[in-house]
């Protein structure tokens, strides 16, 4: 299925959020994920199912004042 | 609640700290842009006595900066002397064999009219004893309602009330509350107020929090000089209380009073200490240097000449032509007063004297026209 991760289209076979993050090589620490504008707490990543066309945002630390 | 904060300040220790202040501490306090409580202690301490002239200069400067050359005028009206308390120093003491009066509605209105004939007073202070059963919140509310056609700014000086009572009186047009803690000495408080509702220190001292929580616009505080020989400590505690209230209820205006008891000539309660004019002046200057914005109020307890001078040096609010007996302006001109008035001049005479020393008496400085509490009640 196709999902959007940080505005890039990604074709994936992953079914859970954890699997997706792993397949994209994203670190498990120091990041947070929102799906369709809502936070998905880390504890829910394993059971959070993906859906066609979902919009995911993955953020991490950046420099800033 | 302030009673919790007060627990951090031991009476004896604070007294010792004030006594230990030196001329250097006073110089430091006078040189600071913003004084803290320790500076205030220095300014009210005996060590500050030789600095009176400098303190007067600073006090006048700060007062003129914030208030201009004005003095806000108010008039007190006692509507009842009925009281269930037994404050050892008070003329309304429950055991005092005297005629008790609770003014009727008609009498109250007659008083209002009589006051308006004296001077263009707009700031009215309604005073009662403490008798919730016979002259409680509904009675006070009624007196406020009746006052509205005559006065634009209504304050009360009554027993401490519950938050919802303050809120309800606000809807009857009450703009301010004055309540004297009398003393912050928890241990001795009960000696002066042995029985009745007023014997509850916590209820009284936390009343100011309740006023703040009810959104009262103006809160007046005071300690009665003559109870505690270490009055410097009492005034320091009041300064602490003032800072506390300002921090928590920042929408409210504050005023302070330091009423002095005078030695009794007719065998009544003899004050435990007598504060001299110099000392009262020192305390007044200290308060102004400590807080540039607080209203400092002098009643007619103070002598005429002293009041006139102090009106140019720090005092910003004054009563004039006061009668301290219920119905004293019209109904019962001869009744027994609560305390003896020193400044016996008429309001017009006080006005003229203030003008002579370059001060503009202000009769009206507030109109509750936009007050939502009042507006909602009217709908």
């Amino acid at each position, binding site marked *: 299925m196709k999902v959007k*991760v*940080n*505005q*890039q289209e*990604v074709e994936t076979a992953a079914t859970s959020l954890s699997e997706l993050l792993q397949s*994209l*090589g*994203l*670190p498990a620490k*120091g*990041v*947070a*994920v*929102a799906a369709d*504008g*809502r*936070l998905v*707490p*880390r504890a829910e990543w394993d059971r959070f199912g993906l859906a066609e066309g979902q919009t995911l*945002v*993955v*953020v*991490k*630390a*950046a*420099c*800033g*004042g | 609640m302030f009673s919790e904060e007060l627990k951090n300040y031991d009476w004896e220790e604070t007294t010792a700290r004030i006594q230990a202040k030196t001329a250097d501490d006073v110089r*430091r306090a006078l*040189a*600071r*842009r*913003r004084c803290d409580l320790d500076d205030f202690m220095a300014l009210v301490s005996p060590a500050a006595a030789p600095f*009176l*002239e*400098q303190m*007067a*200069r*600073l006090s*006048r*400067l700060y007062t003129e900066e914030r208030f201009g050359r004005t003095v806000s005028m108010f008039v007190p009206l006692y509507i009842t002397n009925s009281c269930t308390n037994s404050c050892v120093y008070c003329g309304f003491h429950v055991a005092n064999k005297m005629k008790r009066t609770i003014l009727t509605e008609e009498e109250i209105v007659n008083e209002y009219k009589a006051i308006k004939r004296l001077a263009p007073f707009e700031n009215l202070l309604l005073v009662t004893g403490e008798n919730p059963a016979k002259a409680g919140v509904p009675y006070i509310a009624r007196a406020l309602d009746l006052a509205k056609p005559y006065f634009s700014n209504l304050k009360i000086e009554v027993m401490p009330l519950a938050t919802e009572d303050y809120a309800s009186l606000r809807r009857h047009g009450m703009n301010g509350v004055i309540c004297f803690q009398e003393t912050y000495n928890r241990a001795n408080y009960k000696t002066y107020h042995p029985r009745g509702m007023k014997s509850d220190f916590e209820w009284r001292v936390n009343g100011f929090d309740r006023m703040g929580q009810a959104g009262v616009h103006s809160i007046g505080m005071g300690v009665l000089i003559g109870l505690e020989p270490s009055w410097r400590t009492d005034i320091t505690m009041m300064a602490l209380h003032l800072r506390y209230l*300002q*921090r*928590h209820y*920042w929408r409210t205006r504050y005023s302070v009073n330091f009423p002095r008891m005078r030695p009794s000539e007719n065998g009544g309660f003899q004050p435990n200490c007598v504060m001299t*004019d*110099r000392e009262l*002046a020192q305390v007044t200057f200290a308060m102004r240097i400590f807080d540039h914005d607080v209203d400092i109020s002098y009643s007619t307890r103070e002598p005429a*000449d*002293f009041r006139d*001078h102090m009106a*140019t*040096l720090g005092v910003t609010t004054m009563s004039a032509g006061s009668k301290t007996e219920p119905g004293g302006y019209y109904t019962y001109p001869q009744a027994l007063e609560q305390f003896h008035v020193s400044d016996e001049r008429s309001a017009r005479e006080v006005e003229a004297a203030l003008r002579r020393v370059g001060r503009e008496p202000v009769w009206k400085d507030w109109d509750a026209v936009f007050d939502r509490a009042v507006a909602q009640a009217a709908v």
Partner: protein
Amino acid sequence: MEKLVIAGREFSSRLFLGTGKFSSNEQMSAAIEASGTEMVTVAMKRVELGDAEDDLLAHVRRPGVQLLPNTSGVRDAEEAVLAASLAREAFGTEWLKLEIHPDPRYLLPDSVETLKATERLVKMGFVVLPYCQADPTLCKRLEEAGAAAVMPLGAPIGTNRGLRTRDFLQIIVEQAGVPVVVDAGIGAPSHAAEAMELGASACLVNTAIAVAGQPVEMARAFRMAVESGRAAYEAGLPVSAASMEAQASSPLTDFLG
């Protein structure tokens, strides 16, 4: 020097550091070290897929340093709540520098949205330090909403113009029941010292250090300035000469006899 306490946590240093605009992570890390700071802000950004970038947090995190994630980039309270939730999840801290600036030119904070967001975030358990206008009334409202500190601006962010809001900062400091951190506009150590002298609890500095000729040296300079300003405040500054007029010839207190 008195310890600074925010939300029950003690700080020995009153200099907070922003991590933006440094030329490298190494330089930023060295500046953090030299500044002696115990509070460092970080922002958030989208992860670039397939990018094996250096982990910023590794350069920031160290014992005794509180991470202060900001919500930079959000435009209203709604977005701020999402950003805050993401920050809490990513960095494992409830501390939050709330900044909402819909205006892209001057990055000035939106007071209305900031107050709304503070109310909501406090209820969600965040330790909220809102970046705000130097507006004394707003600061009291933020305090009532449960802000752990207020962070009024000295001048528009990044301008290095110093305390243009000085008179208002003074009132905020006088009235505040929570620590006051002067944020934005501090362009030189003398500005930071001035803020501390007038009683601010701390300063947040970023641009002035990050873009200095030698950021590490500048971080050290700010450290000294903040300490010196605070020490002066605690020692008690004398009033300005204007209010200490010389003794006049006719004393005011003669009537007292």
